[in-house]
């Protein structure tokens, strides 16, 4: 679960940036004019992107006004979906998959490293406020287990060493590039690469 508790320090105001305003107008065009509140989820996502990965109350009020809907309805949506963060998660938001395939392949060790390096508790910012971590359910990359998601990117085929390196790089604000850390190409097999075109059964 993501952070559903409202952060106690809220910014006073929120407004979409120039780019997001343009993006918002494009999103609005997808819906009939009298159904414009359908855009609420996309708007919340925009707000989250703009505000360092979390949505302040001011943004909900702003969106409610923008879409002519009651504030409580925006609040309901924001609290319902787990991928909206309602409190700061840092510049680098680490989501560790701990569902069965990842766990079999050692996700618990990844969690241990996160605990050691970022913060003892989930959903807590690291000391330098750059990073926080969270256990999540399956992120759909079971072939490359174990894996973590940092902001939008998947870091796959991890072990203790590579995880440590990644987290260290985050904490120094110099993140490594996302990739398979056993140097696989996408989900291709590591050894005995068989070209699919040569496979008779393909």
């Amino acid at each position, binding site marked *: 679960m993501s952070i559903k508790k409202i952060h106690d320090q809220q910014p006073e105001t929120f407004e979409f940036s120039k780019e997001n305003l343009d993006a918002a107008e494009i999103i609005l065009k997808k819906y009939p004019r009298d159904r414009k509140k359908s855009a609420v989820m996309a708007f919340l996502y925009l707000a989250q992107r703009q505000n360092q990965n979390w949505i302040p109350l001011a943004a909900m*009020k702003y969106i409610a006004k923008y879409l002519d809907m009651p504030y409580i*309805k925006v609040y309901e949506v924001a609290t319902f979906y787990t991928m909206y963060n309602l409190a700061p998660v840092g510049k680098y938001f680490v989501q560790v998959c701990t569902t069965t395939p990842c766990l079999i392949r050692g996700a618990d060790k990844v969690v241990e490293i996160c605990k050691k390096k970022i913060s003892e508790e989930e959903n807590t910012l690291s000391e330098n406020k750059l990073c926080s971590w969270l256990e999540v359910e399956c992120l759909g990359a079971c072939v490359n287990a174990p894996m973590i998601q940092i902001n939008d990117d998947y870091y796959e085929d991890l072990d203790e060493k590579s995880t440590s390196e990644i987290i260290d790089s985050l904490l120094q604000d110099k993140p490594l590039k996302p990739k398979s850390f056993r140097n696989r190409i996408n989900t291709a097999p590591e050894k005995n690469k068989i070209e699919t075109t040569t496979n008779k059964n393909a």
Partner: protein
Amino acid sequence: MPKIIINGKEIEFEKGMTVLQACELADVEIPRFCYHEKLSIAGNCRMCLVEMERSPKPIASCAMPAAEGMNIKTNTEFVKKARKGVMEFLLANHPLDCPVCDQGGECDLQDQSLFYGFDKSRFSENKRAVEDKYMGPLIKTQMTRCIHCTRCIRFAEEVAGVPEIGAIGRGENMQITTYLEQSMTSELSANVIDLCPVGALTSKPYAFEARPWELKKTESIDVMDAIGSNIRVDTYGWEVKRILPRLNNEINEEWISDKTRYACDGLLKQRLDVPYVKKNGKLEKSDWDEAVGIISQKIKSLSPSEIGGHVGDMASMETIYAFKILLEKIGSKNYDFREKKFYINPQDKVNYLFNSSINGIEESDLIILIGCNPRHEGTILNARIRKSFVKNKTKIYSIGNPGDLTYDYTLLGDDLNEIKNIFEDKSKITQEIKNSKKPIFIVGESALELKNGSYIFEEMKNYLIKNKFISEDWNALNVLIQNASTVGALDLGLYNIDKDNNFPFFDKLEKNHFKLLYLVGSDNLHIKKNNEFIIYQGSHGDKNAAIADVILPSAAYTEQDGLFTNIEGRVQECRKASYPPNEAKEDWQIFNLISKNLYNTNLFSDLHSIRNIIFKNIPNFSEIDHLPIKKIKNEIIKLNAIGDEKIAVKPIDYYFSNSIARASKTMSDCRNVLLDIKKNGTNN
């Protein structure tokens, strides 16, 4: 009509009904929590599961539209097992605190668990605990008990029109909360207490007061406004413990306003229970003999024309009639019922009624408000207008700004010219009016109070007659009366109107012409006391009791039988639920006492003899609880506008509008919250 088979019985149903409604037609009771007739369908509690032929799973009957040839079974093991399963889940997280829960005895969950509950729980984990929310001075919350039926959310959004309650989070972590934990800014907010099927939302002022089976229940009528909402008064001994709504689809449906519901604690406070007489400039306790003696001496010493009488906002028709007879016996015709100088034309009964009827609002296709604020002047009426607005997208216009009415309306302006333009077919909505089939024109007391009040009313009537909007099928002429006693007083003729002067009583009052003024519960009448001898007869020591020379304690509306005519002209009976405190008497008995002292005869032998005469005196009276007979006279009075005037909707101190409400602690709490919200602002 299509047919459906329910438990082997074939039933005809109307198209568009749900399976649950069809089952009700077949007299089969379906348990439910989230479904409510007056709200939209949510289908989330799953308690109403029934078996449908050819469906492998049970279906939620409240959300399933009934269709031709469906075969529904509600009494099979399959259904029972399904409902038991649902109930087990509901109870998994529901605390077992019925002994300390105020809903106990009238709780849907309690009742239904009797049939579908298990005797012990298989849920060995910890129960979920939820923080209680603050929802204002009326609603007490115990959110751990909530079963997430979302009735309160739907009510706030659909009926009250203040979308301030919502469900946040999801699954086990779902919680019901209000906007930033503030009280609801609605005059209908306390209806969520009735809607809540469990004890999550209970009544704060009534908390731990009584159990439902201990209370005596009396079906009665509300007098806080002129709508005549049907209520049930629950009493414990003398005390009125609470007031609940009674279903009447023609008036209040299932709702009552917060004032109706919670002003009742004012019935316990500030009561006048013994007669008072002013001695050496101070009111002192006295007894009936002395008080009545002083009054009759005073009356004998004055000429009848120097005696004036006024009845207040909550007087029953019996009181009004008996008072009129008493004054006429004394020889005075100086009586009135108005608290403010608003224009009336009582020549024709349609001139002071809400002729379109409250149900008619839903049929209407255009509503024009003239100088009225239905939200405060008739809260239940406003809920109907909102219903019409939501259901039929009825266009609503207002002349004079009433503020937030919980629905969208177009403000045409607040100038007299706006009305003139309509009458002269020059307005921008003229075409819209002409095209509409069933328009409603609602004129409020604020408009009738203007110098041009008579012009607005008479010309409006002429305009409607000209456009054929006043007929026996549809009457678009509506007056929004504010006080419960007003229509009754008009019906019984307790007014004094000259042909060219609508306010002779007020003229005399302002010139301090009266030597003796007899006030029957009139607290909102502004009196500049000079030398008058003032008799105050009423239930509460309020504004005008303070300036009285003799105080006669009488019964409040819950303590005596009485008839009240609501704004539609519907005569309804308010029944005695309690009895007058201490030495206080019913109003007609007091008039009898005075008559006995003055003339040695009683005015009336009993209340029923007054009632029988009243029935004969009410114009166009049909039957009790029914609308009056429709008679259209269409007399035309031509008037010209005097100068230019702004139509301002006079604000009402909603929670403090009468003496009972002013004595009520709950009402003053509500008022303070409202003032606080106004000061700090809610809308960002």
